[in-house]
């Protein structure tokens, strides 16, 4: 009898929690995992900031395979979570299928555009942020050769590389930019060993600053750069602390701000396309105590100038995804 009672009690408690979950936001983390020290961690930071400030709770799931995407979105929508936030362009197809089925739920997708009345699509001007770190790389490089290491070879990563190369070339027209991609499968996001070898290969071609836009592979890039005594540039979230004094800067993509904004707005979050660029603090460069000695006043001034130029339109950074070509570098 007592057992039965506690069982019933537990069921009732579950029902209550399920009720409380109504209108709570939900976050879906992409395959890299919540603590990838990069993209997903950034969205987790935003969610945590919201939870801390408002005392609210949110539901979350870390995807383990591509097959789970649609299922995860459906389950959150079904359970009444609102808004449902997902970081990662890979969710695009799944969301396109699911969004019309739940017209009362608002979805937020980061890094992709889904045309539906109940979806907010947040996209970043990564090429602008990459342009800024390119300016810094060109000024920090002594050899005049800088490197770019991408993760999986997709247009989005080329967009990073292209903006970076343009920033380098605008600052130092004689510079050489070496661009490599880790691979063409999702395994390319998690292959630090290959990241290391690519860095070694770029160093042997004379590179002394390397920008890694490669998820977990970037850990290997930053490690080897530190071991070999050259500078590296992190991506997405602030990675300066990984090797203090040896990471020149990080290209910040404020996924955390996007998640935070969406959660703060709640179910009434404004739908449509939201572009986060240099002008509205969506992308930027990280300067903190770990790299303060590396960024000279001159470099800081150059970055400020470039930011102002991008804002007022006097500097136009080429977006690779607009026409799938890159004038500054060949991939």
């Amino acid at each position, binding site marked *: 009898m007592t057992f039965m009672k506690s069982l019933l009690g537990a069921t009732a408690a579950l029902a209550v929690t399920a009720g409380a979950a109504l209108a709570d936001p939900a976050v879906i983390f992409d395959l890299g995992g919540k603590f990838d*020290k990069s993209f997903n961690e950034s969205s987790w930071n935003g969610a945590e900031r919201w939870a801390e400030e408002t005392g609210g709770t949110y539901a979350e799931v870390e995807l383990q395979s591509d097959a789970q995407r649609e299922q995860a979105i459906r389950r959150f929508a079904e359970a009444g979570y609102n808004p449902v936030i997902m970081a990662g362009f890979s969710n695009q197809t799944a969301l396109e299928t699911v969004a019309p089925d739940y017209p009362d739920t608002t979805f937020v997708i980061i890094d992709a555009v889904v045309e539906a009345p109940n979806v907010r699509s947040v996209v970043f001007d990564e090429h602008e942020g990459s342009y800024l770190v390119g300016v810094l790389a060109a000024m920090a490089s002594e050899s005049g050769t800088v490197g770019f290491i991408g993760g999986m070879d997709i247009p989005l990563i080329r967009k990073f590389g292209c903006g970076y190369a343009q920033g380098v070339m605008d600052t130092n027209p004689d510079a050489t930019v070496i661009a490599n991609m880790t691979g063409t499968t999702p395994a390319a996001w998690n292959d*630090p060993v290959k990241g290391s070898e690519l860095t070694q290969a770029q160093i042997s071609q004379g590179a002394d600053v390397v920008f890694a836009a490669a998820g977990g592979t970037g*850990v290997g890039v930053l*490690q080897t750069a530190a071991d070999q005594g050259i500078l590296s540039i992190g991506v997405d979230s602030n990675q300066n602390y990984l090797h203090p004094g040896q990471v020149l800067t990080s290209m910040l993509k404020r996924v955390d701000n996007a998640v935070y904004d969406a959660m703060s707005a709640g179910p009434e979050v404004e739908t449509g396309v939201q572009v986060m660029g240099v002008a509205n603090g969506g992308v930027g460069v990280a300067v903190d105590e770990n790299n303060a000695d590396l960024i000279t006043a001159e470099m800081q001034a150059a970055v400020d100038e470039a930011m102002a130029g991008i804002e007022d339109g006097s500097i136009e950074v080429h977006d690779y995804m607009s026409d799938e070509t890159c004038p500054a570098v060949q991939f």
Partner: protein
Amino acid sequence: MDLLTILQILDSTIRLATPLLLACLAGLFSERAGIFDIGLEGKMLAAAFLSGAIAFVTGSVWLGLLAGIAGSLALSGIHGLASITFRGNQLISGVAINFLASGLTVVVAQSWFGQGGRTPQLAGAARFEPIIWPGALTNIREMQQAGPLQQIYSELISGHTIVVYIALLIVPLTWWVLFRTRFGLRLRAVGENPAAVDTAGISVVGLRYAAVGICGVLTGIAGAYLATALQAGFTREMTAGRGYIALAALIFAKWRPWYALMATMLFGFLQALALRPDIIERTLSFRVQVQLLDALPYILTVIILAGFVGKAIPPRAGGEPYVKER
């Protein structure tokens, strides 16, 4: 293309080939004894995690290496139990080990270190440092000035971690054990005709467990090399398919130790070459897709398997659990 560039590619080849070589020799022992091992990948991954974790906690890379070997041995034990004692399907057991390692490493790493399925960065004695041989140059500018012999010595021979030299020594050792000792003869026999070995009064089960155990030790070293020598810590799925490439290399090597060295060096060379598309373009004067180079190990293996170049004959009793009496 100057000599130094070639040497840099070869240097990279050695680093990339070492984990393949160790895993390939591990598979060699296991498959020669009639136990197919598709779980090399998972064992390497488990070893990489444990070596990274223990090396960080104790500050000693050698304890890390031992922990990695222990973890890999534990998975080998499971594989042995499932496929030797309980006569289960060896492929299924291997696949299960891969899944187990892939999930477990991340979960345990997350609960121990809270860094999202990775171990903290290793530094100092918690890592295998490159060994600089006496008289070798380390500075790239000095090396450019040096003569060709000094370049070969400094770039190619010196400057690897101890694991690389150990791995290279294991090749002749494997050959000697398999082809010059009584244990090796019996081990090979157990993979060809276990009934004959049993008739001679030698334990088939014991021999197969020994082979699976050696396999565990070698994959343990391979995994530790990834996490503590090539990298400074474990990251999730860091083996990135190297266990499967090692299996391909094993077929390519026709289950022979010296061929295994050549096959893994060839695969490592292709991977190293893929890192330098600029050199390929300059040498051949046209652009070769990097993806093609990445796929070449598999393409070559298929060609070998199809019987176009020589013939790869696996051990005859491979994949068959041994049943004493029906």
